[in-house]
């Protein structure tokens, strides 16, 4: 028996509107059709009507979870266009906030993964910890989510000694707590059993479908813009690119946990080596006609902004590519032949940020559709195919 189930646009597993249309046979998904556009707001057109400064606040509101990433990516590009360089202290504070945001985003993701797997206690614990980093961000910037720290030529708020100490303390608390809680998570067999072997994406598929971020890194691809194309401070900071080879949701979890630890390290390095001086330089109002490609490793993967100026106060074109969009073809691949029960997990595993992806795009994809009458031999072939696609390998190890 085959029937269609719609997931979304309003669905408890998705905090944001997107529509997934699944063709299922029993509990097995045979076909996936993604329909976006529910969150499309037309931001790129809007950006052409705003000034350079106004656009910082616009790009910040592309997404609430990675708001600093988009703003930073944009500001990096505009600084190159205007040929100014932020002062060292300003850059350090900017990327400190960026790393804190990565911590908040990854903790959020872990909680969501727990929730999608029906492990609400894990969700509650990680989100309780997340409040620590939210407090730190609030102390630095004055707001919990849209920090508005960036300005063209630096940042808008300085840190003092007391705050630096508080942040270091906070990171220490976070580190011990995350280690403790992740140990709990690793020892819960139902949880690990739910994650291992789910949502398989082989390395070759990940390359072909241009996957980015932790999704690609969990398939064994060492791609991290912070290392490949180090912007501003990242060539001074020691850190490792985290990868896993298991190609499944467990691998993606492991990658994110390792990245959390790396982020704690980066934050500590940035705070301990915080140079003295100004935090911002004055920026001109206009930019010469030019074009620039700005890349930034957001928590979900590579953010890329293409900015073109035409000598006026407004950009000629601002093109935003958010990481989630790049991961959609991979998601469709992962969902096929999975179980209904795994839809939320697989979908959550790319850490979908639909609002990012949809500032301008929609897509409809993957359709075979035709009904088939199956004979027993075909059924066996199908089963074999399914097991080929879904190897239950569990060689991803928890980092503790």
């Amino acid at each position, binding site marked *: 028996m085959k*029937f*269609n*189930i*719609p997931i979304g646009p309003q*669905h*408890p*597993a998705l905090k944001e509107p997107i529509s997934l249309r699944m063709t*299922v046979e*029993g*509990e097995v998904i045979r076909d996936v059709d993604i329909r976006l556009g529910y969150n499309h707001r037309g931001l790129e057109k809007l950006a052409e009507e705003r000034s350079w400064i106004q656009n910082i606040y616009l790009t910040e509101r592309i997404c609430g979870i990675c708001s600093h990433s988009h703003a930073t990516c944009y500001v990096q590009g505009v600084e190159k266009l205007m040929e100014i360089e932020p002062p060292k202290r300003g850059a350090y504070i900017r990327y400190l906030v960026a790393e804190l945001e990565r911590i908040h985003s990854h903790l959020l993701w872990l909680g969501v993964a*727990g*929730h*999608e*797997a*029906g*492990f*609400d*206690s*894990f969700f*509650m*614990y990680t989100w*309780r910890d997340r409040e620590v980093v939210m407090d730190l961000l609030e102390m630095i910037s004055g707001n919990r989510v849209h920090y508005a720290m960036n300005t063209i030529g630096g940042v808008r708020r300085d840190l003092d000694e007391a705050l630096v100490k508080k942040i270091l303390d906070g990171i220490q608390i976070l580190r011990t707590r995350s280690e403790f809680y992740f140990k709990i998570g690793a020892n*819960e067999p*139902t*949880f690990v*059993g*739910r994650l291992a072997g789910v949502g398989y994406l082989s390395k070759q598929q990940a390359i072909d479908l241009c996957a980015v971020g932790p999704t690609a890194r969990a398939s064994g691809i060492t791609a991290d813009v912070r290392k490949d194309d180090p912007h501003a401070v990242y060539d001074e900071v020691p850190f490792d690119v985290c990868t896993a080879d298991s190609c499944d949701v467990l691998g993606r979890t492991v990658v994110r946990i390792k990245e959390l630890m790396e982020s704690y390290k980066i934050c500590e390095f940035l705070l301990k080596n915080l140079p003295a001086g100004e935090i911002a330089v004055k920026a001109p109002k206009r930019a010469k006609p030019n074009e620039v490609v700005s890349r930034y490793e957001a928590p979900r993967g590579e953010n890329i902004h293409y900015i073109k100026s035409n000598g006026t106060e407004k950009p000629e074109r601002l093109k935003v590519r958010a990481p989630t969009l790049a991961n959609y073809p991979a998601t469709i691949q992962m969902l096929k032949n999975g*179980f*209904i*029960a*795994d*839809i*939320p997990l697989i979908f959550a595993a790319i850490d979908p940020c639909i609002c990012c992806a949809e500032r301008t795009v929609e897509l409809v994809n993957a359709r075979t559709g035709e009904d088939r009458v199956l004979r027993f031999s075909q059924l066996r072939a199908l089963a074999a195919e399914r097991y080929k696609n879904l190897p239950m390998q569990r060689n991803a190890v928890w980092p503790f």
Partner: protein
Amino acid sequence: MAVLKTILYLVVYPGLLFLFVYSTFCEWFDRKVYARLQNRMGPTHTGRWGLLQPVADFFKLMSKEDVVPDKADKTLFTLLPIVGLAIVLTAGLLLPLWSVGDAGAGMVSFPGDIIVLLYLLSLPTLIFFLAGWSSTNAFSEIGGTRVLTMLFGYEVPLFMAVLSPAILADSWRMAEIAQFYRDKPLLILPNLLGFFIALICVQAKLERTPFDIPHAETEIVGGTFTEYSGKKLAFFRLMTDIELVVSSGLVAAVFLGGFPGGIGLGLLNFILKTLFVIFFLSLLRAMTSRIRVDQVVSFSWKYLAPLAVLQLLIVILIKGLLL
């Protein structure tokens, strides 16, 4: 007089009213324990310590608009909550709670009542399935099929686990089983394995995490109850709560020595023992994550069923060698 007494039994204690009050209390207890285990406060501001929260939920749902979807089978859709409620209330009457004539024997007590109770507890599963199926909503239908799939998993281990103490006690009557274990409390120990198997199976029967697959909200929205609203949902919630009380009462009666002591002490015994069982169920709910429906079936046939057989073997050996 006898008629009046029967009506009293049916409506007040241990019938409708008592089960309503006690099941709402149990829901509160469950929610509170769950919340405290998650570092939260749980219901706090409704009544003292939030005790009245489930009652408020019930009355709110009763006062809400009742929507019946156009495509649904209207008669079935409307009847199911009432029938389900009636079934679990009947099951509640079978518990060996206080009654005047035969102390500790229950309102209705006869040899074989444990079997009847087990079957009455199987019926809600069918009600859930029909509820999902008659809604004609894709999510409800998947929820309904999941209900049935799970039934194949946990039902047999549950029966075997619950019946092995009965075999040891050599009786099919709950009051007598309880009496037997009260007389020989040491014999509770060999049944420990069965107790935990029964706990897990009851958790699955009640569709709570890790077995909340039929209404896994992140996967299939509200599952079987997606289309239910207002009064019908209120009845279903009450039904689940009473089912929780009755099945924990069953486990307590069979494994923990029943509820002796007449009206006062017997009630206290009942409350303490059921809360003990419910605490375990809440613990299980807080500590695990939802598993897949195929994992449920393979888990119960790979682990639960063999262990239940082992339990049966232990019981038979003890019975043959020691008694």
